[in-house]
């Protein structure tokens, strides 16, 4: 089973039962030992099972293992982790795609609370910092605020973010300056409101982002695009913000 590859499953008549090895990052803040890894072996797995299913099986073996999960279908973003060196959601990662031993680590560059659980406080603070809500001077109208279909289309690729943190935790600029660079996730949210035809705070939003850190630490490395489990493109969203800034300043 060491060389499971997706293509080989497609050729196989059906899911095969199998044994897989997992190497999981462990850290107990209350224990004496520093961080380390622990090996687990599971039997009777099928390639169609998701990594989260395997983690839940490991949890049955060893209830001290800590990880977050909720919806189990790639909507809530709770189970973001580093899977074989790449950030992703355990619940939508098929075991069949993974080489062994499956190395599970917490999201890189983010403080670890315990095992695979990281401290997302800074991430959420940055999300709040872009004021991710519609800002309009007029009082709330009786009916919805209308948009043209074209105006609505500009939000496609921006509103679908589930804030799992895979992108920001894959961004080298975010690793170097996590306190002052907002990171791809928060900037995608900023773009979502800057692009919104109903929002009237566009100029203020652009002003707030115009310093050396908040947006301009982005060097278009595009790791965020590479890992986003929802297939979004934060680099392009950041580019759209830059273009608007440019238009505003000229």
């Amino acid at each position, binding site marked *: 089973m060491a060389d499971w590859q997706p293509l080989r499953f497609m050729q196989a008549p059906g899911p095969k039962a199998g044994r897989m090895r997992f190497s999981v990052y462990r850290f107990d803040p209350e224990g004496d030992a520093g961080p380390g890894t622990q090996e687990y072996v599971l039997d009777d797995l099928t390639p169609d099972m998701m990594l989260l299913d395997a983690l839940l099986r490991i949890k049955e073996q060893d209830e001290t293992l800590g990880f977050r999960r909720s919806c189990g279908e790639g909507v809530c973003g709770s189970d973001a982790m580093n899977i074989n060196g790449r950030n992703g959601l355990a619940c939508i990662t098929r075991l069949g795609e993974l080489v062994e031993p499956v190395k599970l680590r917490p999201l890189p560059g983010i403080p670890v609370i315990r095992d695979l659980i990281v401290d997302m406080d800074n991430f959420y603070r940055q999300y709040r910092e872009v004021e991710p809500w519609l800002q309009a001077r007029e009082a709330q109208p009786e009916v919805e605020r209308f948009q043209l279909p074209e105006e609505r289309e500009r939000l496609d690729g921006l509103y679908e973010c589930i804030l799992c943190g895979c992108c920001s935790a894959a961004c080298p600029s975010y690793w170097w*300056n996590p306190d002052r660079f907002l990171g791809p996730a928060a900037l995608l949210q900023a773009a979502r409101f800057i692009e919104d035809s109903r929002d009237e705070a566009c100029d203020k939003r652009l002003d707030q982002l*115009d310093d*050396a850190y908040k947006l*301009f*630490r982005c*060097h278009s490395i595009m790791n965020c695009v590479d890992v986003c489990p929802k297939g979004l493109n934060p680099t392009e969203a950041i580019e759209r913000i830059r273009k608007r800034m440019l238009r505003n*300043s000229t």
Partner: protein
Amino acid sequence: MSGFSGMGAWLLQRLTAVYLVVFTVWAGIRLALADPWSYAAWSGWLGEPVNAALAWLFGVSLLAHAWVGGRDVLIDYIHPLGLRLALLSLLAGWLLGSGLVFTALVVSA
């Protein structure tokens, strides 16, 4: 200040990049086609006031471009404030000094 360090710096980097490419290609072609192919022809061409001004602008653009890039690297990687300020000052001093020397060369040519 904030306007310059964000969008302003980004814009400066791109505008200087465009000028660097355009001047390099244009001057490269002109110098390659110099007839006769000699030092005298080259220095004569560069000695014309317009060409000298454009070459000077090239030098200034190069230094400005280097400033934004070097500053980006230092902001990314050097976090202790004192060390960063020292390195930024060093970079700024070096680039300004280079600019002065280059200006003196262009003026004297």
